[in-house]
């Protein structure tokens, strides 16, 4: 049984090919890196796995279940145990740190409108337990978040906001966690701590998919990586193997001007390549 298998996954935006025929298998318990230059389709891939928009074609299967995730709305995907963080941070800024984590627990709580309105003992107990567990989750990051539980999320430092996103995603009790550039905006010390945190998450039994532009982090924690360029997977393997490959260097640094200069096309070649759907 494959943990996450992606078969021929494609996404077009109008005429723009953001992701093309992606095939990928992620093993349970791995930290799997998705790398590639800007606009290579990494975030589009995350958005497809989490149901932010439907795929143009292709399959995403999770834990051997017959359902194709590429067709499901995001809340159903979340309920199956996949959660994520966002590259450009999507915290609930005007809610407290604790409330942010509690929203992450939504699928694990039961109470409906009526029992909430009447505040039945059952609801009260559930809330109490949820709060305790949310505090425990904040404690995952030591003293970084827990003492700030009652502060609005907007008041957190940048690194703490990244941590809160992770805590909120963990509140869903995911089997698979997608981290989209979790180290962006962190200084080197914070980045090192983050690597440690990701390892602890993995050791806790959560498989991790990771997009990261800081390749030293990728080198430090990823068991395997896939390299995307122009919406296609150009290679896959252990990072140390992959990083020396000419295609990868080319993807990152661009083709050397001295090679391939003759391969020009006039007119007919004027087509868009892949474009990442992200905006910054």
């Amino acid at each position: 049984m494959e943990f996450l298998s992606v078969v021929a996954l494609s996404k077009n935006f109008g005429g723009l090919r953001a992701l093309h025929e992606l095939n990928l298998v992620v093993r349970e318990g791995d930290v799997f890196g998705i790398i590639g230059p800007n606009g290579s389709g990494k975030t589009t891939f995350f958005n497809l796995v989490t149901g932010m928009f439907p795929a143009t074609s292709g399959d995403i299967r999770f834990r051997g279940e017959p359902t194709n995730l590429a067709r499901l709305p995001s809340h159903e995907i979340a309920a199956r145990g996949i959660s994520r963080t966002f590259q450009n941070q999507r915290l609930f800024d005007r809610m407290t740190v604790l409330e942010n984590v509690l929203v992450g627990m939504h699928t694990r709580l039961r109470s409906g409108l009526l029992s909430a309105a009447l505040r039945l003992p059952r609801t009260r107990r559930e809330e109490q337990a949820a709060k305790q567990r949310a505090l425990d989750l904040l404690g995952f990051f030591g003293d970084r978040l827990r003492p700030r539980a009652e502060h609005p999320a907007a008041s957190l430092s940048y690194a703490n906001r990244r941590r809160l996103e992770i805590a909120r995603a963990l509140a869903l009790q995911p089997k698979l966690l997608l981290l989209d550039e979790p180290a962006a905006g962190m200084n080197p010390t914070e980045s090192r701590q983050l690597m440690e945190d990701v390892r602890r998450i993995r050791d806790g039994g959560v498989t991790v998919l990771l997009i990261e532009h800081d390749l030293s982090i990728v080198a430090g924690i990823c068991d395997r990586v896939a390299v995307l360029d122009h919406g296609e997977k150009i290679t896959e393997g252990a990072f140390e193997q992959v990083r020396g490959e000419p295609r990868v260097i080319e993807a990152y640094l661009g083709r050397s001007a001295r090679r391939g200069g003759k391969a020009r096309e006039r007119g007919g070649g004027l087509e868009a390549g892949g474009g990442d759907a992200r905006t910054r």
Partner: protein
Amino acid sequence: MLELVEVTTHYGPLRILHRVSLEVRAGEMVVLLGGNAAGKSTTILTILGAVKPTSGSVSFNGEAITGLPTEQIIRRGIALVPEARRIFRRLSVRENLALGAYRRRDGKDAIGADLELVYSLFPRLKERERQLGGTLSGGEQQMLALGRALMARPQLILMDEPSMGLAPALVEQLFELIATLHRRGLSIFLVEQNANLSLSIADRAYVLQQGSIVLSGTAAEVLANDQIQRAYLGA
């Protein structure tokens, strides 16, 4: 011509640029290299007044332009080829080009002559001049964005990652064209991720990493330095 002195910018609490100093002299082509999220686009937006620096100054032709409204900076002779092209999709090709010349006051004839010049550079645009921008292919949109900037008859062109999202063959074609424009005397400030190709056509280069300039020199020096590899592929 263009000079940034110790420019620092923030986005909310996050510092994007840290004391960035760089310069483009008249007739030069300077490339600013950097990996994902290094602060390249922010540098461009700061030059154009769309992002206000927390400290430091920007000057153009010896005149401080820090904090001026964008349209006044444009009027001084800077044109932009924006990131992801950003052409007007609901306007025709010709109207897009006309907008490039919006700030010009040197008369219909001069503008008309430049339109012909742009059409001679990009015959494809002439064929499609009545089509809406949104119907063009990615490569054609890039041509249009470049043509639109040329229509301003600028002293300096800023280009924000023109290679992004284009097929490799097309990127080479584009860079050849940029090199031609430069040879004809245009000053260019090119922001790129594609290091090898842009260094092969530029005069000088700066390398931006996490918001700071970590390396600068002539294009040949930078190309030879192995630190560039590190700036992109990690330490």
